[in-house]
């Protein structure tokens, strides 16, 4: 075991001083790249990711291996193609991952399928929405951060969508072997906790209880799932609030700066 979390039961504080139901600091920005159709930058604790969205645009020459391939292949609906680039300096050990890395391909396909279900891709037949994600720093909850960043960038790109796809992770203080009933579920795990404790990534559609992505890669008692899922879904609602605030703040700022015109029916919008 790389780390001793047994201290948790004494003070009910986690290794970074959080309570069981607290998120790490989420900091997000949208429209960070002026040249892109949509872009975002998101930090969840020390996990930092950047996202650039191009499109919906005419599909270019197909590049093998990088496409997510969801959304019907570009006939009746736009194809959402996702590339994830993990920077070599993003984690402690400098590991090179090739383009054909299966974990990376799985990440791309997951993000692509999750967003394709929320984006109104049917409005853009014969086109491609390409989402390019860059991981700058990794400290757990990577998939969740990537999904959140991609959602923000899609909002910035102005692609119609049903609701935000928001994600966060949840874990449990019990190991798979222990059947202790007083184990607490935990919200938003960092890298250390992810290494040691069972965890899952949940992505929901906005503030509803509908789960778009559920990924669990560790062994855990089936009875633990309910608690972890409940905490995860609740965390997603908190994340949605945060992301929504980011989008609204940016919009308000752009209107007050005169970058964009105030929309019809928004006269009552308060500009602070």
């Amino acid at each position: 075991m790389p780390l001793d979390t047994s201290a948790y039961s004494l003070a009910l504080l986690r290794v970074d001083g959080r309570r069981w139901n607290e998120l790490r600091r989420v900091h997000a920005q949208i429209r960070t790249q002026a040249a892109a159709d949509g872009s975002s930058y998101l930090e969840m604790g020390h996990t930092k990711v950047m996202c650039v969205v191009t499109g919906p645009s005419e599909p270019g020459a197909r590049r093998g291996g990088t496409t997510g391939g969801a959304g019907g292949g570009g006939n009746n609906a736009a194809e959402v193609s996702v590339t994830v680039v993990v920077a070599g300096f993003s984690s402690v050990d400098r590991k090179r991952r090739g383009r054909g890395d299966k974990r990376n391909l799985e990440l791309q396909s997951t993000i692509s399928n999750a967003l394709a279900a929320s984006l109104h891709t049917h409005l853009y037949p014969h086109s491609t929405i390409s989402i390019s994600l860059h991981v700058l720093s990794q400290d757990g909850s990577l998939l969740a951060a990537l999904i959140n960043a991609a959602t923000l960038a899609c909002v910035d790109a102005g692609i119609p969508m049903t609701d935000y796809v928001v994600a966060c992770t949840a874990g449990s203080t019990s190991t798979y072997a222990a059947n202790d009933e007083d184990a607490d579920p935990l919200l938003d795990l960092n890298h250390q906790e992810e290494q040691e404790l069972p965890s899952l990534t949940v992505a929901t559609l906005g503030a509803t209880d509908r789960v778009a992505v559920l990924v669990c890669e560790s062994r855990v008692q089936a009875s633990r799932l309910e608690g972890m899922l409940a905490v995860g879904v609740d965390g997603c609602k908190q994340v949605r609030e945060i992301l929504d605030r980011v989008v609204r703040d940016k919009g308000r700022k752009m209107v007050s700066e005169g970058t964009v015109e105030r929309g019809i029916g928004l006269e009552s919008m308060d500009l602070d």
Partner: protein
Amino acid sequence: MPREAEPSLNEKQFVLQALKEDVRLDGRDLDQYRPLELTFGDQHGVAEVTLGKTKVLVKTSAEVTVPYPDRPLDGIFTIATELSPMTAPSFEVNRPTETEVLLARLLEKTVRRSGALDTESLCLVAGQKVWSVRVDVHVLSHDGNLTDAACFAVVASLRHFRKPDTSMEGGVLTVYTPAEREPVPLSWLHSPFCISWSFYGDMGEIAVLDATWVEEQVRVGSCTISLNRHGEICQIAKLGGTPVEAVALLQCTSVALAKAKELSGLLDTKLAEDAKRRDKGGLLAELSAENDR
């Protein structure tokens, strides 16, 4: 790049409408598997699984190699998945499709990451000699639900497999042939099974087990849950698709647990049957001079 032929519009609508009325094309219940058949080959570690028209052949083999330098005490365990053009024309050799990558990842997470095989027991001489166990998955025919069939076949093959016995004496490693010493089974810790749900309807409210190829083509989402009979979840993968109510997913998990127990029971009886078939009294029977005369 050849594309998979899609079912026609009529076919899609027919399947969907039927599912909305709780009817499946082959007359099964929504949570019923197709007949699952498992046969072992003459060699140890060869398992063939048929699930309706889906057919998977798995072979396990082992050889002695040098361990990875960063893991000197662990044996090597790899699962190689191959979807050849024989399975379906859209699969190509040496160019893994998304299906293949996701299948390989699922098997890896279910069997390898969950620690089903004790890799430390594969170590012979620390840092120098370890067993390298390789599982080759060949999909012979694809009619939906590859994951469940492949996972079942992999677990069956690994539990059926026997590796040559070895001994260490005075720094000399001896690997015995099957004639010298009876081969030994792998050190197996638990048997995980994949259970795949497919979702249909606008809200993903219809959940179906063991989808056929046509049903897989029209589904709006899927969720694969891996469990063992002790009620431990080894892996859950709902990779995108239409969002499904969290409560429904919990319900799916509890049904999946029952199914995993069923599969576990089936595998145990099949293994026992096969052991009985092979058991001719062991080495003693072979050495005995008695005959029928």
